[in-house]
């Protein structure tokens, strides 16, 4: 409420230090403590919608599991085409996440830390791929980066690079759709992080980039990790922009969601089985990451 003025100069930073610093340490303790205080658990007005929400999200997946053609699963899992599509999906989603990290983290920093005219508009533009139907996003990418596109024609003329119908095109399409998730997550974390750490680093002689690298990045690492996971998951399931921009060719641009969609036309059972494979792999990867890396962060 009161702006952190003179008094904060002396007492502020230690406060925030105790506020943010130790929280990862004793976090488990407060979590166990409230339990005896509310023996009845969560209040009903929260519990009922929460459970309904959970059911709403989980029920379709349960239905998928119930209707899955388990007998044909072994045959599918040994099919070379499935592995080819799965491998391509994992490689492309990971590359798209890497690309999003390289471009998205600096963009998030710019939006969170630098005052410039039209920042609100830029922020809205960054989230645009979220509301754009992915197929439209794919057409927009064709118009921008296609062989005949606004920028794409120069790529073709100068470097002989054409993105449509290539694996690189898949990565570009997935990054286009997934990067906003990362930017939003990282920007939110950056805005919640106290800029005074960076200012303190500056008073100790660190340049702005050094402060970003040595102070800001470690501070917001959990936010970056969460954003990267979101982006990776979104990229893994990407369908519309990919098939529109990169087309569909087995081994080159046919990722799992594309092969699921096409299987749906011919053999819905196979499509269900393929979706389950994709789900299982993504859950395994995300759970594995969480155990190994996110909790330690």
């Amino acid at each position, binding site marked *: 409420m009161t702006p952190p003025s003179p008094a904060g100069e002396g007492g502020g930073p230690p406060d925030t230090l105790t506020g943010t610093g130790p929280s990862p340490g004793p976090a488990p303790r407060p979590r166990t403590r409230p339990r005896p205080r509310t023996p009845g658990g969560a209040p009903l007005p929260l519990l009922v919608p929460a459970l309904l929400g959970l059911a709403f999200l989980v029920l379709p997946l349960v239905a998928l599991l119930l209707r899955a053609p388990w007998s044909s699963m072994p045959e599918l899992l040994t099919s070379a085409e499935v592995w080819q599509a799965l491998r391509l999906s994992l490689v492309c989603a990971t590359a798209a996440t890497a690309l999003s990290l390289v471009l998205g983290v600096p963009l998030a920093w710019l939006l969170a830390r630098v005052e410039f005219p039209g920042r609100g508009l830029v922020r809205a533009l960054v989230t645009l791929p979220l509301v754009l139907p992915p197929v439209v996003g794919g057409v927009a990418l*064709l118009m921008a980066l296609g062989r005949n596109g606004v920028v794409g024609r120069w790529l073709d003329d100068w470097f002989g690079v054409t993105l449509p*119908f290539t694996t690189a095109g898949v990565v570009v399409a997935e990054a286009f759709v997934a990067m906003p998730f990362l930017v939003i997550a990282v920007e939110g974390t950056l805005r919640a992080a106290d800029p005074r750490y960076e200012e303190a680093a500056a008073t100790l002689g660190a340049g702005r980039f050094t402060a970003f690298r040595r102070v800001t990045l470690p501070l917001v690492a959990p936010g970056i990790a969460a954003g990267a996971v979101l982006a990776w998951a979104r990229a893994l399931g990407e369908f519309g922009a990919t*098939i529109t921009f990169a087309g569909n060719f087995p081994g080159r641009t046919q990722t799992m969601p594309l092969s699921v969609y096409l299987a749906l036309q011919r053999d819905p059972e196979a499509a269900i089985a393929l979706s389950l494979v994709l789900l299982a792999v993504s859950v395994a990867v995300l759970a594995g990451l969480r155990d190994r890396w996110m909790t330690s962060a």
Partner: protein
Amino acid sequence: MPTRSARTRTPGTPGTRHPLRASAAVAAVLAALSACAGSDDDTGTGSGASGDVSGEVTVFAAASLTESFEKLGARFEKEHPGTEVTFSFGGSDALAAGITAGAPADVFAAASPATMDVVTDAGAAAGTPVTFVRNRLEIAAPPGNPDGIGSLRDLTEPGLKVVLCDETVPCGAAAQQALDAGGVRLTPVSYEEDVKSALTKVVLKEADAAVVYRTDVVAAGGKVAGVDFPESAGAVNDYPITVLGQAPNAAGGEAFVELVRSAAGQKVLGEAGFGTP
């Protein structure tokens, strides 16, 4: 008024307490309805359909029928005042899946017999589907045909980027049939998920050619050039149409199918590039 009467008819008014009163009400509504229909007949609609067509008619149709069916829908509403034709256009296979899952449609017009079979095999069709138009394949090239494509074999030229429909969708199956008939082995840069996206790749000049339907070339106007090829005769696609068994408005559905198969309907479809069966 006709829509209201149609609505009271469908719930069936299961008046458990006063069955007599309920049936009396239904009788009154039906009387009013037939009076309405009578006046419709008096205005003389000209088409051979019986006058008691009213309410909403829901038509599920293959995406390639969009332009011509919308024209026919407007005509139908004019010929049968008080009706409203609602279309759901999409991939035939997706529409068929919707129908077998219980979507409330009156008419289904598919782009291939195979997708219609899904519906008939599930027992969802009323009667036997009839073929109402045929579609043949054409090569779509950018305007002016800069690569001078003249035959199916020309598509195999190295460096030429060709897109085909995936074999799981009707246009892809037909293209493969034509390629086999011509003994042409072709590796495209992409197997597209439907015919419109194959066409889009040529319109945006990302691909040098696509094998699509003649009707798509016509619908694209001057944005692509069509190249006819003899092998397409061996891969003609029949479009079947039928009224559905669970049709909420079977009479309306039958009248619509009648219009599609009439000379006037065939003329509209012919202008869109379809051939007569």
